[in-house]
């Protein structure tokens, strides 16, 4: 009888410790999850800023200026445009 009680006590003790460990593990994972979510938000912000930067670099006014001034490009006169007829599908 006493032996069984001792066994049960040990089992109960082990369970209690396991619960504590599991709880701690869950919290650690949760903190990590939170950190990743914060990172996600930060990356979203950065993505927005990069999009902004891209739009600024790819602005039509800037492209036109570079094309005209630095690369000396100009729209082709209509007579030099060859129109292709799309092949029937």
């Amino acid at each position: 009888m006493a032996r069984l009680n001792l066994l049960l006590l040990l089992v109960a003790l082990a369970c209690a410790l396991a619960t504590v460990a599991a709880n701690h593990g869950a919290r650690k994972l949760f903190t990590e999850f939170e950190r990743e979510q914060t990172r996600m938000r930060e990356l979203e912000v950065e993505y927005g800023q990069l999009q902004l930067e891209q739009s600024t670099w790819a602005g039509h006014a800037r492209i036109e200026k570079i094309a005209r001034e630095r690369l000396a490009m100009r729209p082709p006169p209509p007579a030099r445009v060859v129109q292709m007829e799309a092949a029937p599908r």
Partner: protein
Amino acid sequence: MKFASSPILNPRLAPGRSRFVVILLLGGFLLLIGRSFHLQGFQNDYLQKKGESRYERVIEISATRGRILDRHGDVLAVSTPVKAIWAIPEDARLKPAEARQLAGLLDMDVRELNRKLASERDFVFVKRQVPPDVAAKVVALGLPGIHEQKEYRRYYPSGDVMAHMLGFTGVADEGQEGVELAMNGLLTGKPGSRRVIKDRRGQIVEDVESIQAPREGKDVTLALDAKIQYLAHSLLKQAVGEHKARAGGVVVLDARTGEVLALANMPTYNPNNRVRLAGAQLRNRAFTDTFEPGSTFKPFTAALALEKGKFRFDTPIQTAPGRLTIGAATIHDAHPHGVLTLAEVIQKSSNVGTAIMARTLSAEDMWQTFNSLGFGTPLKLGFPGEVGGRLRPAKSWRPIEQATMSYGHGISVTLIQMAHAYLTFARDGDLVPLSLTRVDAPPLAGATVFSGQTAREMRVMLEMAVQPGGTAPKAQIPGYRVAGKTGTAHKLENGAYADKYVSSFIGFAPASDPRLVVAVMIDEPSAGKHYGGDVAAPVFAQVMAGALRTLGVAHDQLLKPLLMAKAVKEGV
């Protein structure tokens, strides 16, 4: 003597005393157990709350305002987080050196800073919309009573090119003009909040509940084509400068879907820097300014005359001697013509010929047509300050007014209304509603205003107006058949026609299967030229040519010299 036999261990206590002590101890225990049951079982709400407040926190989850995209997904407006620096003036007792340092960081005047900190209020914004890196430096100073707060700032990478279309937001990130206001409800995000458990180090260890889920602002995809918009903007800017005009506007519509592909106004402003913003720059003229359309209005009268069957395409109309007296007033043609067919009346833009047509029509019918074309009522796209122009009820029209209205005087319209109404000619007589947002499935036919036959005949007439002998040969585009109508209207000033003009051109191309409607309006050109065919038509031609090339619309007219190549069937 043995310890066990010590007489002290064998006291002779009165039985009542020991029982008394036992009962006392037992009673004490019972009291404690009862109290703990009471606290745990009956009064636990209050204590629970007290306990939770020790480790639970409600934190806000911010939501960002949606982006505005053009039809190809390019970003036109985006919010990024910035910081607001605020202070509790009572706590912020800064030394002069500290104040100077703070003012220097925030790029503001020390006196202004001191004035703000001397405020009686509990809370003042020192500076809003501060870049995050600057705010971090401010916080690093560790000044008392100075705090930061997260907020958003809206950026418009295209600057002044789309200012009127997009509008802008205020400091609190709410729309104030343009699409930002028209679609504010959709764009605005709603911040949420949640309850969490934080540990000693301030880290979140457990999510208790979500009190309110955040609603992120929705992205809005406009019908706008950034490339066509840039083209319209820069060509308009050039034309307004060249003709020393007071203002101008361009509208580009997709004839198949009713989408607004571009909308530019001059003068304009940079929405990213609105320091010196005057009312004139803010005006979205295409929507808010009405003008007398003049000759661009004639096709509607002609179309109604065709529709009523009183005239045919080639019905001769005697317009000589270029004058027509109605009641006490006389109307004139700029150049007298002889006998013109109905088509030539439109081609040569004869006021007299149009008035003769209008005489055979009832005022009620004319009003009905103009009304169903959308004149007199705002388009209701949600833009601030949208106006409907003036279209008086038919009962109040006098004969002379009916005559002048037939060629676009005595009525006022906005540029976008004119462009919209021309959709009836570009399509087969029906009027689809305009759309600011991208339309993925072409709408079914809109409300029919004219018959398909009438619309086709009007297209031929409007094409004639652009050809030699018409009023706007400068609207021609190599490779495409173009149709359109010029307008040159005197401006009304204090009830009398002044020596100032509004030059306009509204047209569509390719005439064989119209894809785009472009409307151009130049207000008060004052560099010598003022005819719509000289001022507005070239802008139309450039915008239209560029837009058609951007969209890859096939030529419908052969170029000389003939340069056509058939694509090789394989490999293309």
